[in-house]
């Protein structure tokens, strides 16, 4: 009788190959933000806000702060090696001037994956064409964060206790205080331009008495506006923001609720990490809700609101 060992051994080999394929065709990382409904429904219109208890979902990403050594110098001079990669600065780019006061802070603080706490979204269909129109989005990232300034950062460059805090223009504010209190107006001012850092409180660090811990709230506004159109599948909406790339989102509009998910894993509205939003129909006019949201330049003024914002008042020294 003739043996056919080669034929016999092919079966387990095939099983192994199948197992290999099975192992490698699954096992992807599960997204932190599950996809919401994509049932389509009537084209969304009107105003929407985040549903209470149904937060937006943002992936927990890490976006490294920029290396300040290479601003404008990414290409080194010939025959000079690029600088070694480095982590961020222990001092969070805290700057002290030539005097003994804490004077200024360069740039914005880094806070990670700040959740979006407030959202207003409005869709205004074109007359006679419910499948396209204009949209306006306002988001506010909120949270309470802590900055830890080591003693070296607070002291090494000449800052001293017993000096008055300085305002952003370098003018003294009030009586002499310690370096932590001197830091407060600088931290608050650092948020200007990307939102604001209200409620700043800086205290001595109990575990590093010459250092400071600063607590601050973040209220960073963002968003955008532009055109939108419903795609032929009636489940996907394409946003065409002014000054940004088009973005697609699947939607499920049930009249009183609107679920939005970045299409095919895209970030929603181009906001890094933002995957989904669960919105509720808003009966409140965003231009009369007592908050600065959407593309408003101030509280219920500017942007797409009919009322223009008043001219800013001159700063006063308390």
């Amino acid at each position, binding site marked *: 009788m003739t043996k056919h060992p080669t034929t016999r051994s092919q079966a387990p080999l095939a099983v*192994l190959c199948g197992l*290999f394929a099975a*192992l*490698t065709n699954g*096992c*992807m*990382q599960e*997204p*932190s933000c599950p996809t919401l409904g994509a049932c389509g429904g009537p084209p969304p219109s009107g105003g929407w*806000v*985040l*549903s*209470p208890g*149904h*937060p*937006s979902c943002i*992936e*927990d*990403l*890490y976006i*490294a*702060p920029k*290396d*300040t*050594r*290479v*601003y404008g*110098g990414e290409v080194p001079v010939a025959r000079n090696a690029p*600088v*070694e990669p*480095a*982590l*961020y*600065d*222990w001092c969070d*780019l*805290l*700057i002290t001037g030539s005097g003994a006061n804490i004077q200024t802070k*360069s740039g914005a603080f*880094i806070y*990670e994956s700040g*959740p979006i*706490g*407030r959202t*207003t979204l409005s869709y205004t269909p074109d007359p006679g064409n419910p499948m396209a129109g204009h949209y306006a989005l306002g988001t506010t990232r*909120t*949270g*309470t964060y802590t900055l830890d300034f080591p*003693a070296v950062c607070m002291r*090494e*460059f000449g800052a001293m206790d017993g000096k008055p805090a300085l305002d952003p223009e370098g003018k003294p504010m009030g009586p002499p205080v310690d370096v932590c209190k001197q830091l407060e107006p600088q931290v608050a001012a650092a948020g200007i331009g990307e939102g604001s850092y209200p*409620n700043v*409180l800086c205290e001595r660090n109990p575990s*590093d008495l010459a*250092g400071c811990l600063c607590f601050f*709230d*973040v209220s960073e506004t963002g968003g955008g506006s532009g055109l939108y159109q419903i795609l032929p599948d009636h489940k996907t909406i394409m946003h065409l923001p002014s000054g940004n790339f088009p973005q697609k989102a699947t939607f499920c509009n049930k009249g009183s609720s609107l679920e939005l998910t970045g299409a095919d894993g895209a970030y929603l509205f181009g906001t890094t990490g933002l995957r989904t939003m669960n919105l509720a129909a*808003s009966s*409140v006019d965003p231009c009369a*809700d007592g908050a600065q949201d959407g593309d408003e330049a101030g509280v219920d003024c500017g942007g797409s609101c009919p009322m223009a914002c008043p001219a800013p008042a001159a700063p006063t020294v308390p």
Partner: protein
Amino acid sequence: MNYRALGAFGISVALFSVHARAQDDETETEGPAKAADAGKADAGKAQGGTAAKASLGTSSKAEGEATATAQPPAPSTPAAETSVTADAGAADRAAERPPVYGKRGDWNITPYGYARFDAIEDTTQSFDDGIQPNLIARVGTYRGDHRRATFTARDSRLGVFIGAPAFQGIKTSGQIELDFYGLQVSDAKKHDQVVFGPVRIRHAYLKLETSVLDVIAGQYYEVFGWGSYFYPATVAYLGVPGEIYHRNPQLRLEKKIHAGQLEIMAAAAAVRPGQRDAGGIPDGEAGLKIAYNGWTGIATSGFGRPAVTPISLGVSGVYRHFEIPEFRGDPGSEAHTTNGYGVAAQILLPVVPAKTIEDKSNALTLTGEGSIGTGIAELYTGMDGGSRFPLLPNPTMKNPALVYPQNIDPGLVTYDRNFEVKSINWKAIVAGLQYYLPIGNGRVWVSGIYSRVWSDNIKKLTPQASWGAIFTKMEYIDANLGMDITPAVALGFSFQTVKQTFGDVSAPTPVYGASGTMGVLGVPTIPNTGGVAAHARNNRGQLSMALFF
């Protein structure tokens, strides 16, 4: 340990060796005919010699077997090369072997190696062919949400064992082993990175065996971790995360003592320092390994060849010194110093013993390793945990900003919040189990590994804004199935999963909705949310085939 004295001893040994060879060269040079005969003899040995017994590409087991049968040749001397080109009979002597010690036929030169193919499928785009300790791409990023396929033959190896004739009771041997993971230019195309495969030195050393001590000089596995003696069996590339896996140039003294079936090996070495500019002081390593030959099992190092291996226990340590400039853009000559150390213990336990390589059926072997240390990250196969030096403060806003003149690889030491130099701590465990099925006398085997490596101070030594750029813990699990298609060809399948826990944590979820208001020092948040350490995971399927020779 007086390192400088040790170094001087090493130089003396090297000079003595060269001198002895030179004297012999003058008297032992053979004519062309004899050289040709010797070449034939070597070829015969290479084909039918001991190469098949070597535990290929993995081990000092292989090295140990080779030294019993192979002796290294001496390199040609410049003087000899000159005479060949200058003499009138240069044409006749062109084929002549350069003068070396002993007759050509008394040398043993045994090539070995393997040709290997790996097909790898990853669920993220984080790694090249090996699971290096890079940061894994997170979910929500492009590289974290998409696959990568890697086909490569770069882990093929070519080596040669060299044995010289014994001289006055001194046995001399050597090994040179290469693979194809050499450095590439930074702008190489992905195609070129995989397909070109520049050569890299794995081992290149000489060994002198005397009745008193053995000496190894050259690049070889380090004493710390005891090299390949305790490697786990896996289709995955070694070292797996948390495994001490490193080779370094070194000058090493070994002493092996036999007491019945008990074998005790002690070793000490001066090793290339982890920091070249550490005040001229090399790393010091030492270890003790005990094996009992009356209790043997089957063990495979990585995806190599199985070997009969005794129950073994090893302990080893490393001590190193660091000197770095002050943390300034324009440091003076003052050096800031600290030291690193590492301690490791390994075990190889044949749970179900086996006596012969011919029948491996049901052999079950456990391998384990635990290590702890500081400033030794790179000994875990290039790991750095993502740690880098912090940016220099720039209080006077100089543009361009000041740059710290770093003189050490990242991940070993850094400057803490008080600008004091600190070394980074790591602990690791690796446990592996390998079982040879009763199929074809053990031709089919399964194995698995669990390992983890973690640091208790890397986060403390990292500015908060960069916590997302470091990992504090890495865990690894694999499961493998291997089989010998023929005695020379192995096929392996492997599933590997590795998870990294990063330094940053998620923010608490604020209270949402149109009516959400800002609190005074604190946004209202949903209780028990946030504070979760960010993490990422890569899963890998791997198919490997290798022809061992």
